[in-house]
């Protein structure tokens, strides 16, 4: 455990306990990991782990997945099968071994400085935001507004979002389905906030696809609110050694006005003002 209170990353082999769909496109995995020091925090919301298959079937690089929860020696993940690695993950049955390196990266701030939290998650961006709400939601400066966006109502993991969350779905809803509104999650947030922008400042935290993050940035900037975003970059090591995952951070002292920062180690959570938006490509890379 380092001086900042962040737990040390541990390299170990876990065992899949459960691994199955929680919505049309999302899968929840429970991984039993050895150890877990009683009393100490196991992770902070926003941290992730690099998962891999053990031995000769290992992928060259682990796959980064945010930690949804970690309790009683069981780490929970929520993911979507999109490519080679996550598809293989999806196929693992109970009892399969999986290497685990984590927790990694810098989390969302635990304190909002007395501000009301506005939590925004899109798709597989749910885990860090969900765990923030679970762990800090009660003690934050005012009732949190938690909004989740999904493609369709079938894609919503209802067991997780329950009724603490407002839900927006992109595909039109069946008539009379009152569980969600139709549209983008950022539209939902704007609607929910109403005039509260005038009432009092909020602190925004978000994780999701790039178009959503840009909209969140604008939403916060327009109101002058502090805003934290969790970014995604393709990763090699996940623990800061390969420099394969850089995002551009503002650095006025540098010739070019920015410097490359590792998404895995300096991030994945960044304050919106630290990012050099002008040199970013559409997906966030310099």
């Amino acid at each position, binding site marked *: 455990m380092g001086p900042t209170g962040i737990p040390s990353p541990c390299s170990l082999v876990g065992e899949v306990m459960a691994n199955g769909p929680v919505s049309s496109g999302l899968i929840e995995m429970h991984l039993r990991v050895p150890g877990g020091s009683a009393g100490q925090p196991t992770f902070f919301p926003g941290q992730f782990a690099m998962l891999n298959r053990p031995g000769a079937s290992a992928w060259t*690089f682990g796959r980064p997945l945010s930690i949804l929860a970690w309790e009683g020696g069981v780490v929970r993940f929520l993911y979507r099968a999109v490519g080679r690695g996550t598809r293989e993950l999806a196929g693992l049955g109970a009892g399969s071994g999986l290497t685990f390196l984590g927790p990694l990266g810098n989390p969302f701030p635990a304190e909002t400085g007395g501000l009301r939290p506005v939590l925004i998650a899109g798709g597989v961006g749910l885990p860090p935001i969900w765990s923030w709400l679970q762990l800090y939601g009660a003690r934050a400066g005012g009732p949190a507004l938690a909004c989740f966006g999904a493609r369709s109502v079938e894609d919503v993991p209802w067991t997780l979002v329950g009724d603490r969350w407002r839900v927006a779905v992109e595909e039109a809803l069946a008539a009379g389905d009152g569980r969600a509104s139709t549209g983008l999650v950022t539209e939902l947030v704007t609607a929910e906030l109403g005039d509260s922008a005038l009432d009092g400042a909020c602190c925004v935290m978000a994780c999701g696809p790039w178009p959503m993050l840009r909209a969140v940035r604008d939403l916060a900037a327009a109101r002058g609110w502090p805003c934290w975003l969790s970014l995604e970059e393709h990763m090699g090591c996940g623990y800061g050694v390969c420099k394969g995952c850089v995002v551009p951070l503002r650095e006025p002292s540098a010739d070019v006005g920015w410097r490359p920062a590792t998404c895995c180690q300096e991030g994945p959570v960044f304050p919106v003002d630290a990012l050099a938006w002008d040199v970013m490509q559409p997906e966030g890379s310099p």
Partner: protein
Amino acid sequence: MMPAWWRTDPCAPFRIGPREFPGRIWTASGCFAYGLTGHEMTAPGYASPYEGLGAVVTKTITPEPRAGNPMPRLVETPAGALNSIGLENVGLREFVRDVMPRLEAAAVPFVASIAATCPEQFSDLARAVQTAGAKMRHWHGLELNLSCPNVAEGGHDFGKDPDTVAACVSAAGGGAGDRALLVKLTPNVGDIAALARAAAAAGAHAVSAVNTFVGLDVDLATGRPCLPRRFGGYSGAAILPLALAKVDEIVRKAQVPVVGVGGIGSADDALKYFALGAVAVQVGTAQMRDPFCAARIARQLQTG
């Protein structure tokens, strides 16, 4: 179980040129950064990722800091990866002022990797590191990176010519100091033994073989190369047979100790290099997957 012919303790001290190293299992340059974050890592049964390691070869540094290449910098392939990091590094000044003292304080055995675009620069870099490290117990040597394929202005073609290799080795002091002088060779040549002989003749105490192979992958959606610089350095399990062949050529055709690098992910992989006569090995890409990879290999080769 270890094969019957294996009788070496990979964690016992051994000598390269004037310098005794604490062990034969090292991490490769660029795959464990500056070796400074390992103490933050834990694994059941291990004190740290440095346990049993002979050296961390630090990320290659250049005279000035470098911001590296545009993203994406990595492409995973079925049994390997292409990288195009572009030598992002903190530069000489920060390396000698900050990195080296911290490695020394943390008692991490290390080899400093340096790259330059001409022999004179190699001379300056080597001298600066030598000055900073003169009294350090844990600084064991210099590795001249003559082979990084991602840097436009130097790198590649640079290290493909035996005369240039010799000139850089001579400029870096030709092995006159009290630490080991190693030269990291590019495999992207027809005759790697000629490079090794040139390095040895100019005073290198050993060669590290090999750096990455030039590779390319295509993004099918666009039909364009995945990496902005087209080419990347190919590493990982897929290159093991290629790197073993290069090491074998050097061992048999040049009179110089070889540190084997390329595709090592297990004790078995490391043993293949030792079987061919390598004096030590470096773990690269696999160290990125698991910070304890080299330490696990060291322990397994020790205990069988």
